[in-house]
């Protein structure tokens, strides 16, 4: 791995070296390294680009790292990854995509992820997106995530896009059976002329299914963000959708949380707020000896932490 590869791996997966356990690395549209463990099997798909990841029933305290890096201009990578998390398994999945584009052509990665989560299984999925490079070519990331949750399964999904992605269109779709719980935490910062759209549809179909969706974002300069999370209660269930944004410069933000109930015991709540950094917050940090710029940075970092 060269210096750029290493930096990208650190940015998207906090990796300083190839980790122990199950691992998959995709670079410039090709699968370059792949390793299964005793309980986590990673196999290439036969009919299209991508991998199938099977976490065996009862697996405990294991993790899979599967970063994607693009270091060339003009790469257009479409990949299909299916996760089969069997009953009672407990696993951490660290994904993420970093694009280093020093050329004039766009580089794009579209990851189609499908999660099939078995009964009582427990997963945490962390996905970081990052872009860099001084070329004129855009860095584009369009992830699609489908989550199918069996009875009493649990899924916590954290997606973070902090820097350097020019355009992103995120689509997330989830179906929850009885007792399943889904927590989604989305953190996003856009700057320059970047555009970020995030659509979500969460269907709560089984009794006592629950979901919490938290979206926190900061839009700077001339960037644009659109959030459209929808929670649909089709049974006795609970869901909470919260979109919270800080707007700066000439940015534009639209936040449209939508809730729908098709059952009289569905309990669904949404909250949305867009506002600039509170002046008292800046003043307070200045009274602690920070400059206005330092105060602004602290507030944003905490908000997105």
């Amino acid at each position: 791995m060269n210096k750029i590869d290493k930096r990208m791996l650190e940015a998207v997966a906090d990796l300083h070296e190839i980790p122990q356990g199950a691992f998959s690395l995709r670079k410039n549209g090709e699968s370059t390294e792949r390793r299964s463990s005793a309980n986590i099997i990673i196999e290439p798909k036969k009919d299209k680009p991508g991998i199938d990841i099977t976490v065996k029933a009862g697996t405990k305290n294991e993790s899979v790292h599967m970063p994607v890096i693009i270091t060339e201009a003009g790469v257009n990578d479409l990949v299909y990854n299916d996760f089969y998390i069997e009953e009672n398994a407990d696993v951490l999945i660290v994904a993420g995509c970093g694009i280093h584009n020093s050329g004039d052509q766009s580089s794009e990665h579209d990851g189609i992820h499908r999660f099939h989560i078995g009964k009582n299984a427990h997963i945490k999925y962390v996905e970081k997106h990052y872009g860099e490079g001084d070329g004129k070519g855009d860095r584009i990331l369009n992830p699609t995530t489908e989550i199918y949750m069996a009875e009493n399964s649990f899924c916590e999904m954290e997606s973070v896009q902090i820097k350097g992605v020019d355009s992103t269109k995120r689509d997330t779709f989830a179906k929850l059976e009885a007792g399943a719980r889904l927590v989604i935490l989305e953190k996003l910062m856009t700057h320059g002329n970047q555009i970020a759209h995030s659509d979500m549809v969460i269907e709560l179909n089984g009794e006592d299914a629950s979901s919490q969706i938290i979206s926190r974002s900061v839009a700077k300069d001339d960037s644009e963000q659109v959030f459209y999370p929808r929670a649909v209660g089709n049974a006795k269930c609970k869901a909470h959708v919260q979109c919270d944004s800080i707007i700066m410069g000439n940015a534009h933000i639209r936040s449209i949380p939508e809730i729908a109930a098709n059952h009289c015991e569905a309990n669904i709540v949404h909250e949305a707020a867009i506002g600039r950094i509170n002046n008292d917050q800046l003043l307070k940090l200045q009274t602690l000896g920070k400059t206005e710029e330092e105060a602004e940075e602290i507030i944003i970092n905490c908000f997105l932490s």
Partner: protein
Amino acid sequence: MLELKNISFNVSDELGEKEILTDVSLTLEDGKFLVVTGPNGGGKSTLAKIIMGIQKPTGGQILWNGIDITEMSITERAKLGIGYAFQHPPRFKGLSVRGLLSLAHGEDLPEDQCCAYLTNVGLCSKDYLNREVDSSLSGGEIKRIEIATLMARDLKLAIYDEPEAGIDLWSFNMLVESFKGISKSRKESMIIISHQERIMKIADEIAVIANGVVSKKGPAEEIFPELMSQFDNTCTFR
């Protein structure tokens, strides 16, 4: 030493110009504890904000250890060792109580020290260290954390704007003891804007600000009985 010389503060609105403070002069010797009291709307908080640099006076001069700080920014004054506890502290999403205390301290604050500062303001520290300083905290909790942020700093002048507001009786007792301790140490000068008898009693000096002017100033043992006798006879406070 803090010297306020002929401080004035005017605001303009559609009804014309209004004087909030007129020709206020005060001196605070090093290590002294001054309580500023007086009726609501009299200009006390404005004066505190002017000392911190949050408001700029329309007239007059502020000297800190002989240096003119009137035109200095809030940040510059903070670096000189001046601190201010807000009457209505702001909340921060994503910032933990420990994180805020560390920011105030200037470096990562060890857990036992965080706990000591929180205990001083009547909070059970273990329950609060990792909580976010956001809307999940009650008004009284956020107020006590605000006071703890000042105690976590190494200050030469600490200004507390109505620290008692929103604080329950039990925590208030603890707070009074903490102020007593700070005052005894004589390490830092203290200005507390307060209406509380128990805080006034432990001060070195009391200044009464009403209608934008200092109507009384002197040692606490002289001013405090005078104020109390006024309350016995009338509800005016002038």
